[in-house]
């Protein structure tokens, strides 16, 4: 099959689709598997057209069982394949939890490095789409705290296109968190990729540092734009890699601004913000002008959708936290 030309512009969903296609064209051991990923193209159409072009042997509609998807993907990985599994929604990952945390995450270690697990676990995550229960959750911290997993999250079409290919090329298992409410946002796709496990300043500034990832990158950029009217110059860092964390750019930024606010949709207690706040105070104690603050989902089960706007961090909550930081 001749290689499809790389896209120059598109939505996050289309960019992941193009990235999957490029990875499958490059390596015939790459498989896509999950529920409804074939003829339907996935419930978000991220795998649209792949089964038509690569066949049912490489784009596999599985029976309906998340543990079965993950467990059989482990065996396929041991056989030399590179499975990219789709968990249809964040809240459906838990039936596969044992296979992910006890099997996928530990196999390389238990085998003393003899068994590689080159698997990508794609999870559309987060709220803001008015969905029913179990369709809007942010479980990333549970995978970040699991030794043996790497976790990344894309926030732009450019990163979506390149990061999915880098994750597939990795010989380690990677949980790939996709910001589902941003699937349809469009943007440029450049031809130069950053390494997978680096954080990046997406908006330079000097007043305070916003640290975020996934769907909240857009929210923080909007907040930074709004803050300009008040004469504030906010720096925004897209963490991109949640495990391992790449805190080099974060620490450098906080040493300059003296103030950090972590923003994520996931609940507060032991969310990414807790780890980041701990590490920032360990490394930047004498540079801090204020405590590291967190703007997060509350420690609630995800609420009914008509209350989710109140639950999710938004522009106003981010700016309120920035004000508290500046007033400290």
């Amino acid at each position, binding site marked *: 099959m001749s290689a499809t030309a790389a896209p120059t512009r598109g939505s996050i969903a289309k960019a992941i689709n193009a990235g999957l296609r490029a990875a499958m064209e490059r390596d015939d051991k790459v498989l896509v598997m999950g529920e409804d990923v074939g003829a339907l193209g996935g419930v978000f159409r991220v795998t649209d057209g792949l089964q038509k072009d690569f066949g049912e042997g490489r784009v596999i509609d*599985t029976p309906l069982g998340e543990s079965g998807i993950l*467990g059989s993907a482990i065996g396929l990985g041991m056989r030399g394949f590179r499975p990219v599994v789709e968990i249809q929604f964040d809240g459906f990952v838990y039936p596969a939890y044992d296979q992910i945390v006890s099997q996928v995450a530990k196999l390389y270690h238990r085998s003393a490095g003899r068994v590689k697990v080159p698997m990508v676990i794609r999870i559309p995550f987060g709220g803001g789409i008015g969905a029913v229960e179990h369709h809007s959750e942010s479980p990333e911290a549970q995978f970040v705290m699991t030794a043996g997993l790497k976790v990344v999250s894309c926030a732009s079409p450019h990163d979506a296109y390149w990061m999915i290919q880098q994750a597939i090329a990795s010989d380690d298992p990677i949980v790939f968190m996709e910001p589902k409410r941003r699937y349809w946002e469009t943007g440029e796709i450049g031809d130069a990729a950053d390494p997978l496990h680096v954080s990046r300043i997406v908006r330079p500034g000097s007043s305070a540092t916003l640290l975020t990832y996934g769907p909240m990158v857009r929210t923080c950029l909007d907040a930074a734009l709004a803050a300009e009217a008040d004469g504030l110059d906010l720096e925004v860092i897209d963490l991109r890699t949640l495990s391992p964390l790449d805190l080099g750019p974060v620490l450098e930024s906080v040493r300059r601004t003296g103030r950090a606010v972590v923003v994520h949709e996931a609940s507060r207690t032991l969310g990414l913000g807790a780890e980041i706040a701990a590490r920032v105070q360990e490394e930047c104690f004498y540079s801090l002008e204020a405590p590291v603050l967190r703007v997060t989902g509350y420690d609630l089960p995800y609420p009914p959708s008509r209350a989710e706007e109140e639950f999710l961090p938004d522009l106003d909550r981010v700016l309120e936290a920035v004000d508290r930081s500046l007033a400290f």
Partner: protein
Amino acid sequence: MSTPVPSPPPVQLLTPDGRRTDHADYAFAGDDESIRALYRDLVLVRRIDTEGTALQRHGELGLWAPCLGQEAAQVGSGRALSSQDFAFPTYREHGVAWCRGIDPVKLLGLFRGVELGGWDPEAERFGLYSIVIGAQTLHAVGYAMGIGLEGAVGHGVPDRDEAVLAYFGDGATSQGDVNEAFIWAASFQAPVVFFCQNNQWAISVPLERQTKVPLAQRAQGFGFPGVRVDGNDVLAVHAVTTEALRRARAGEGPMFVEAVTYRMGAHTTSDDPSRYRDPAQTEEWRQRDPLARVEAYLRSTGTAESFFADLEHEAEQLGEHLRAACKALPEPDLADLFDLVHHETTPELAAQREEYRAYRAGFETEGVAR
């Protein structure tokens, strides 16, 4: 209470008193020399297992999961594997490990706590021991799906086509993963044989709590054949598993083998069966011992006394070797583990490794013993 569904009689080719019998569908293909080879396996596996229990009692192992009583189920199935086939064990498959050529010292190492894995699964065609009940059956099915995707089935070439043997127990049949494995295997016509050692007990819970129908009968509901075999009859287990693997390699799909056996010992060395089962039941199964019937058969057909004496000597030597080798196993070094979490390690783990090394070095420079 519903009436339990009656169990069909298991396939048997060697009676408990050592007489060969015929079966309409299955026959043991080997001669007495091959039966002597199987008997040697049974005796040596029992010795490995006995040593494991003894080493735990002497404080050399943290735990041991005995396979006492299940030797025929494990050796019969393990010896049915072709070299290119792949087996996925639980944590009790010491007899299968033996058949696959795994050094038994590696098994002792797992239970002593010096490592978590021990061998290269791909090279040995034998997965790592699996402790979360049933999880490995899905790995077996995935591996078998891979064989199917590569087209390594159905050529009719005995040393080319491949199959997978998935081990689990009666308790595991209640796990979701095992049921998903059945569904996946049927749906993808995967070349996998599900080998259930029904040893009657899931720690303290009897078979009756796991199922109201004979386990082998469940296979029909998933869309593939199931067969019951006398799990204490090494010839019958070998014959049935050989046929199931042949089917799988030929591309005819999965099959379920229920080896009806009995866990003669405790679940593990931490368990106390006297709290939950009647010694009379254990005694009843002792009359169906998997080794005694093969010995009776071989003696009745003229195997020389020297064979048994030599084997006893070999078992003694193996026992001595295992005791010495177990105590000589090198201790693990925590500092080595940081680089084995990921194929490409992370700066965070590298930093924690150095933090630990520096902490430990601090004791050495101060002259304080670790």
